């Protein structure tokens, strides 16, 4: 029982991190119906940025956060301007290919620049562990979980309470009508990409203290985040949050109770099962 509780708490915290990574993916999926296969690669790049911010500028993750988030926003805007803008109206096949090509490009460019080695940091402030429900959990993970919740809250307020946020929602629902109402749809798309990759940046910053980075680290997140978004359903921020937590719990519990080696197999099996049974996700609509 104790074991199950430990697994659940650990899974919950990890799930919040998955939710944070999924957030940006779900945002673009929802706003412009484009799936960014390269999303997890930006998390990888953010982890490297955090690493080198510590190495060269002596910044700890919290100090690096604004810098990395800003870089992420810039990278998102640039990605939109250079690549995505050209494929907005294109067929789905073209869109899938373009972002899949981006995934390969970013991953192997990182490989070429940084080499295959794993790199991690030790963050003194987040060392040790914190007790949640009497279960000790790594402090770094708890901080990441809190950061995930904070990011969700900030984005929620932005979308619901600001004019720009509402314009973004309007664009998501009907870009043509939004255009007719004077909303600059192109700029909204650019903003969505900026926000999306900025949240990937936040995720990268808080992952690094307890997760080593290598060029292929995106592999671990790519499918998990897709599974989170699909499981939760889209159209709201709640979808990725629920989905991420659900995936984290499945992974944590299956990994502890059944077999750590096969934890990802369970996650993917659940993902395929969801596609079978409820492809619209827990909250979403049928995407057929």
């Amino acid at each position: 029982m104790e074991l199950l509780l430990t697994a659940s708490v650990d899974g919950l915290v990890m799930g919040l991190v998955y939710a944070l990574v999924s957030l940006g993916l779900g945002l673009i999926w929802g706003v412009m119906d484009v799936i960014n296969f390269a999303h997890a690669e930006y998390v990888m790049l953010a982890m490297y940025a955090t690493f080198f911010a510590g190495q060269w500028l002596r910044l700890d993750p919290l100090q690096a956060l604004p810098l990395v988030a800003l870089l992420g926003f810039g990278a998102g805007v640039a990605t939109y301007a250079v690549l995505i803008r050209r494929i907005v109206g294109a067929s789905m096949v073209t869109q899938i290919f373009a972002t899949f090509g981006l995934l390969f490009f970013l991953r192997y460019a990182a490989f070429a620049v940084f080499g295959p080695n794993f790199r991690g940091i030790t963050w003194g402030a987040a060392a040790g562990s914190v007790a949640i429900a009497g279960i000790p959990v790594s402090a770094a993970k708890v901080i990441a979980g809190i950061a995930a919740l904070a990011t969700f809250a900030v984005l929620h307020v932005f979308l619901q309470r600001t004019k720009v946020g509402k314009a973004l929602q309007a664009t998501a629902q009907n870009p043509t009508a939004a255009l007719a109402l004077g909303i600059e749809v192109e700029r909204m798309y650019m903003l969505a990409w900026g926000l999306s990759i900025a949240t990937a940046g936040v995720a990268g910053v808080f992952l690094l203290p307890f997760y080593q980075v290598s060029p292929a680290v995106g592999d671990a997140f790519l499918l998990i985040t897709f599974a989170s978004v699909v499981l939760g359903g889209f159209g709201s921020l709640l979808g990725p949050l629920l989905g991420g937590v659900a995936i984290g719990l499945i992974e944590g519990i299956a990994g502890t109770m059944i077999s750590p080696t096969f934890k990802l197999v369970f996650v993917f099996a659940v993902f395929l099962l969801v596609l079978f049974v409820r492809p619209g996700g827990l909250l979403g609509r049928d995407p057929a």
Partner: protein
Amino acid sequence: MTPRAAAVWGALVLLPAVVHNAYFLNGMILVFIYGTAAQAWNLLGGYGGQLSFGHVVFFGTGAYTSTLLLSMAGVSPWIGMWAGAALATLLSFVVGYPTFRLRRHYFALATLALAEMVRILVLNWPLAGAAVGLYLPLRLMNRPWAMLWNTKPPYYLLSLALFAVACGLVLVTDRTRLGLYLRTIDQDEDAAAALGISGRRYKLLAMGLSAALTALAGTLFAQYVLYIDPSTVLDPSRSVLFAIMALLGGRGTVVGPAAGAAFLTLLSQYAGGALGGLGRGYDYVLYGLAIMVVAVYEPRGLVGVLERLRPRPRPLPGAPAGAAAPSSVPSPDGALPPASATRAPGDPQPPLLEVAGLSKRFGGLEALRDVTLTVRRGEIVGVLGPNGAGKSTLFDCVTGFLAPSRGAVVLRRNGDRRILTGRAPFWIAQQGLARTFQLIRVFPGLTALENLLAGQEHDGEPLLSVFRASPPAVFEQAGTLLRLTGLEAVRDTPAGQLSYGQQKLLGLAMALVRRPRLALLDEPVAGVNLTVIERLKDHIRAQHAQGVTFLIIEHNIEVLMELADRLYFLAEGRVITDGPPRAIQRNEEVLSLYYGR
């Protein structure tokens, strides 16, 4: 086979007799093996538009199945390769069946997930060598039954043969109904379903063939390199390699993926020292860049670039000789006798379509409320009503594109009653219901003729018959319709390049190729000029004389007055009244609701 193609294949067969350079033969063997996988990927991803990013799982399935059977049970790979192919096909259905009804990224994701799952499983499966991998039994070297040799030519010829089979299969697909149907599904699956083409059936067919072919390539690869492990035959980047070979060369073409495989494989063999030799994956950086550039600028790949430089009309999908010039007499072999011949005055025809108590809610909105209507055989029935009355929703519910909240739709066919409610659109279309869409939905990348061929009868079409061209009668019927609609001159023009009026005519003709029992037309004359309206009206009259019953939504009341036997008037989701056109036109309620008087 053209003389040039025959010369190329002949030269390839004779090559090992002339060239003995092992390094070069090694490169060619890999070209054939990877080329087979690229063609297999092309079959599904190129023609069907279903992108698999986990195709390596089928490659690995083939390699592991035959190797395990050989080393553990002494089963010859000549048999084991087929076991691998069967297993891969089965596996492909596990992913394909649930995801083919969803939008395409789900399939791409599911293939990725499957490949990852299998890789993790094999990596931890001691029987399959786990992370260490498996050696093929070298003691069986040079025993033909074990498919093991210590020279290159046998492998060369074997892989060449498999590659030829792969190219042949893609060629057959390209030139027959299978390719045609897959391309319609790629371009607009709903429009294909409206013609009676089952998306899932042909996607599963392409998927199964693709998986089997990839597995055969995997077996051959294992037999050739004599050692397999998860980081070679289940390596995720190999999935990308297969896709990029097809994509770079030109997906959806016969030559493209073969050329792409040759180019990339030989490039990495000979320029590998310059790129991959650094061990830093520069080649994959370039692949990623190439994928993006191709996707953005020329989705048809190298073949597309060549076609731009030297435009050439694509060959007809298997036009039988003589069928290109159809006889000028409309063939009278309709499935039904002309209705006018059997219709006696005062003798009401039996009902053909019965809609009973149909309701449809979208959340709080009741788009249809208890709609009941009947269409009798041989009638032309009009549906009139203000915008938002629920007319198109009615069509969508009848043809299966929407599921009604309540009520039933029944089609009477020669005495038996078929319940259409709850059935898939393609099945309903196969029962003899044709429909057009309010917004034009032709297949933009297919020629006018190909669009019409896609509309042929799909009811009872045997699965294997799609490996042949359309029967001559279909070509004849398509030719007749092209002439009647005045589209003969643009027969070989892609439909996307036709004018609005031409697309409208084509859309109507597509629905009528198979001489449906009932044609549901959604605003057939909206937005076209008077000449085209006349042509469309003539066309509808001519088809009616041939025995087609019509249900027509139209705002152009003049057209309905001329064509229709009866009208239904719909408003706010309800049938307000029905009757002969003149009576409807004078009806007080209609006047106030429709004309605002």
